[in-house]
């Protein structure tokens, strides 16, 4: 812990998030995973705590958390259940996009609904043929005189099964658009996706739009700004996932320490064997390093520093790879019991693999980080 790096209020909020997550989320996480859905009860509880309005200004009924406090929320919920943290991520991405790019009318219409949990939001970018290369989006928006007509196919949309508001990336000629679409609008067909490897309770869906009429006033920013709108939302998504991975790594560490301290082999606890100690030590250092990178990203976001996007990339890349290593080692420490579907560490491992893919696959992030490094290290022509 590094409590000297944040305020007493932030520490108090963190303790509250932890108590909530351990009482109301963690005990049900295995069931959520098994049933492949979050139940309405936990979503309502999260809404009642202000978690769904974490990024909504107070004027619109939100909690308006500062970046670090929002990070702590994601860490603590992420330690309990990665699927519940996924809800914070995608819901928060849409709240952030409306807050940053929406008109006063758009903010007044949707932000109070999203903050209260009366509306749930999903981020609809990915398509069957379009993943990391988001500029190649194939869903089309065609002007119909007043609004738009949407046609296309989105896939792997987190909470797409239940979201009442969809933020959809579409194309009109060379322009991209970010559109706010009612989940129940005529022409929207949703098909739940089951059997995912990790974050199985994230209620993924395929969403087809067939001649779906979008009324006026549903474009965020303007036509042509769709990709920047979505990129800014993804930046927030990476921040949320990075913190969630810190929580996931912490959960792996705590489970491993408990097991290694009580399980006896060859006449002493597992924790007394040096090769097990190596795994525990790597988890401690990995979690701590990832949390520090997340703290740096949070500080940059709070200061409005232009490098906050890069700091977030670093944090997400490091934290997701750390969580994967920690989960692999946690299963190893637990031996056969760790391979059982009944044990949380097997869920942690499946969830951690997903973290290396969502909101920017590790290879995409590595490319962006390396590209920035090449720019930073460009030879000085005056030298």
């Amino acid at each position, binding site marked *: 812990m590094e409590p000297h790096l944040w305020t007493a209020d932030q520490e108090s909020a963190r303790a509250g998030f932890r108590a909530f997550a351990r009482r109301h989320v963690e005990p049900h996480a295995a069931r959520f995973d098994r049933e492949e859905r979050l139940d309405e009860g936990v979503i309502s509880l999260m809404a009642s705590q202000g978690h769904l309005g974490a990024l909504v200004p107070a004027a619109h009924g939100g909690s308006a958390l500062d970046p670090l406090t929002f990070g702590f929320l994601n860490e603590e919920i992420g330690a309990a259940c990665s699927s519940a943290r996924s809800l914070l991520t995608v819901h928060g991405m849409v709240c952030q996009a409306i807050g940053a790019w929406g008109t006063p009318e758009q903010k007044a219409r949707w932000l109070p609904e999203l903050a209260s949990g009366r509306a749930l939001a999903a981020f609809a970018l990915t398509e069957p043929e379009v993943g990391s290369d988001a500029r190649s989006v194939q869903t089309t928006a065609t002007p119909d005189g007043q609004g738009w007509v949407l046609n296309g196919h989105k896939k792997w949309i987190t909470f797409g099964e239940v979201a009442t508001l969809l933020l959809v990336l579409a194309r009109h000629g060379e322009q991209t658009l970010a559109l706010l679409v009612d989940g129940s609008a005529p022409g929207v067909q949703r098909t739940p996706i089951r059997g995912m490897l990790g974050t199985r309770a994230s209620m993924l869906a395929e969403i087809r739009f067939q001649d779906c009429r979008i009324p006026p006033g549903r474009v965020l920013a303007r036509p042509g*700004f769709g990709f920047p709108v979505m990129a800014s939302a993804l930046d927030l998504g990476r921040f949320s996932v990075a913190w969630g991975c810190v929580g996931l790594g912490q959960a792996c560490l705590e489970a491993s320490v408990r097991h290694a301290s009580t399980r006896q082999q060859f006449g002493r606890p597992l924790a007394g064997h040096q090769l097990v100690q190596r795994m525990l030590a790597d988890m401690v250092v990995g979690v701590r390093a990832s949390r520090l990178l997340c703290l740096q990203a949070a500080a940059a976001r709070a200061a*409005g*520093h232009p490098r906050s996007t890069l700091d977030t990339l670093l944090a997400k890349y490091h934290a997701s790879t750390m969580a994967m290593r920690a989960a692999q080692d946690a299963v190893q420490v637990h031996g056969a019991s760790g391979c059982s579907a009944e044990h949380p560490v097997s869920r942690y491992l499946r969830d951690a693999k997903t973290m290396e893919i969502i909101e920017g696959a590790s290879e995409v992030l590595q490319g962006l980080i390396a590209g920035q490094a090449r720019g930073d290290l460009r030879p000085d022509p005056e030298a």
Partner: protein
Amino acid sequence: MNPDPRRVALRAFLGKLCDVSSLGDQDDLFAGGFVNSLYLVSLLNFVQEEFSVVLDEEDFDMANFRSIQSVLDFVARKRGEA
């Protein structure tokens, strides 16, 4: 001749994102790879806060942010100076 303080501030801001030593005022920030969509939001926030302008829906036009000169021209228009 005193340097234009807005130009200096904008170049200093961009210098936190990338190497601006070879960046001309008319150069395309996006085509040249100096600024990508990830950083566009930072640029928009900077313009609003540093130059005390409020962006409206119609201002979200890439032409307003394509180069250092286009940003400065846009700010001057928003502030009623041009």
